[in-house]
């Protein structure tokens, strides 16, 4: 499979801060790749290095085989970046912004008019095409940023938290639009704080923390890992539960007790729900309802970050 983005041993320092500590990463063409991490993990620094906005102190990055420093013209031609900040040029209309952006990539008005119209339509901006950027709402400006990144039809699209601060409806429409781009063959790299977004969209996920990749696997691989094997068992009893009633084997699993509600953290390989219910019944706790909740990406993410902290 051909490589869309290759990051090889990238280090970046900001004064005494070692922001990226030898990051190695390979993203294949056609992948929907998620780059996750807490604030300050180094996600934006890595994206800025890929985009040529920041220079690595060591290591190299290629985009579709083109080095982002020595062959930057071709690398950037293959890359579309949706920046995290809601930035815009207040002098121009939406259409002017898109025409100008396309022009930087060597595309004239006539070459690209149909594609710009298509983008405006797909991102529900057609009626705002001749409106000044200043007059747009935050959500509309966000959609213009997406259109700007796509105006030269790049093979690889990097979206740096594209849904940060947008309402649910717009988030859903952006998800649909990005999924459609992926189906058309674009490689998508997504950074996000919404882990359900990564879980819903991404094929493969890297988790970055303190400038290091601490996990890199398929979404399913992460969920099936030790970290993803935990689940939560919620029990409702007929009467109030006293934690002292519980046998020692269960006390270690208790996440919370609240009146007649009990939550237990279990592992799907080691703990059986039937055995737990039987144990509870055996101690005189009459179980009247249960529910389970499997680990999601957020649990895996939180667990990983906490493990690294400890």
């Amino acid at each position, binding site marked *: 499979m051909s490589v869309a983005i290759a990051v090889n041993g990238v280090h970046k320092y900001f004064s005494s801060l070692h922001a990226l500590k030898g990051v190695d990463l390979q993203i294949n063409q056609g992948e929907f790749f998620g780059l996750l991490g807490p604030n300050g993990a180094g996600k934006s620094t890595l994206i800025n290095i890929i985009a040529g906005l920041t220079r690595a102190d060591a290591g190299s990055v290629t985009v579709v085989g083109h080095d982002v420093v020595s062959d930057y013209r071709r690398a950037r031609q293959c890359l579309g970046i949706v920046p995290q900040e809601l930035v815009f040029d207040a*002098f121009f209309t939406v259409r002017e912004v898109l025409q100008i952006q396309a022009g930087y990539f060597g595309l004239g008005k006539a070459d690209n008019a149909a594609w710009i119209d298509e983008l405006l339509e797909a991102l529900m901006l057609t009626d705002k095409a001749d409106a000044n950027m200043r007059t747009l709402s935050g959500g509309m400006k966000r959609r213009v940023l997406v259109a700007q990144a796509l105006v030269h039809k790049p093979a690889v699209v990097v979206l740096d938290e594209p849904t940060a601060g947008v309402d649910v409806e717009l988030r859903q429409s952006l998800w649909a639009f990005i999924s459609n781009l992926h189906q058309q063959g674009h490689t998508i790299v997504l950074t996000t704080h919404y882990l359900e977004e990564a879980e819903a969209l991404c094929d493969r996920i890297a988790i970055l923390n303190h400038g290091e990749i601490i996990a890199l696997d398929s979404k399913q691989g992460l969920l099936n890992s030790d970290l993803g094997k935990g689940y939560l068992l919620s029990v409702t009893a007929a009467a109030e539960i006293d934690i002292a009633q519980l046998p020692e084997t269960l006390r270690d699993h208790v996440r919370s007790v609240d009146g007649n509600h009990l939550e237990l953290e279990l592992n799907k390989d080691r703990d059986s729900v039937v055995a737990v219910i039987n144990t509870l019944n055996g101690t005189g706790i009459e179980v009247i309802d249960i529910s389970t909740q499997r680990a999601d990406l957020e649990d895996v993410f939180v667990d990983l970050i906490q493990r690294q902290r400890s």
Partner: protein
Amino acid sequence: MNLRGFYTLLYKELLRFYKVLLQTVIAPVITTLLYLLVFSHALKDHVTVYDHIAYTTFLVPGLVMMTVIQNAFANSSSSLIQSKVTGNIVFVLVTPLSHVEFYLAFLLAAIIRGLVVGLGVFVVACLFVPVPVHNVAILLLFALLGSAFLASLGIIAGIWAEKFDQLAGFQNFFIMPLTFLSGVFYSIHTLPDIWQTLSRFNPFFYMIDGFRYGFFGVSDVNPFYSLCFVGIALVLLAGLTLVMLGRGYKLRN
């Protein structure tokens, strides 16, 4: 070379100042004409610089050149600082434009704005004051070199400044004194020796003196000498600007 990219950036920079024509062209023309009105009224009977040239006429080339260079500086510096502060410079930095194309587009846009405003001042001034033209080629050459010099300086200031306050400082404590000490309103021969000597290190003086030679055929120093001084200063400044842009100084971390 990404010619279309270069042309687009140039077009964007021109469109930017065209969209606020009142602020970028009309206001500087009116301000400069007010200088002409006030200084000529106050000094025309008291100052004679060249025997055969009225003081009001003497003022016009200096004011035109002052307008040209100030507006060339304002165009490149304000565009860059605005793009940096608002963050939209990222849209240019992620494109396949080289630092040379970036430089040339900003340079040319600033030269064009400087020349447009300068032409405006000249045309309106001519309605009130007769101004002879000795050599069009020379005055155009100095206008081009002067505006290119200040356009480059504007790019440097725009790259260096991180906030509008710093750019205002650059303008008020560097550009303005050099402009006013360049002989716009007087001949340097009327200055005490020390100021005459200092003026000879001021590139703005050579721009204005050479430009004035294009109108009157007389100047404080040999126009060829002025041409060399301004030309060399421009080459050095352009080199410095290209090095800064090529290294991504304060643009790419």
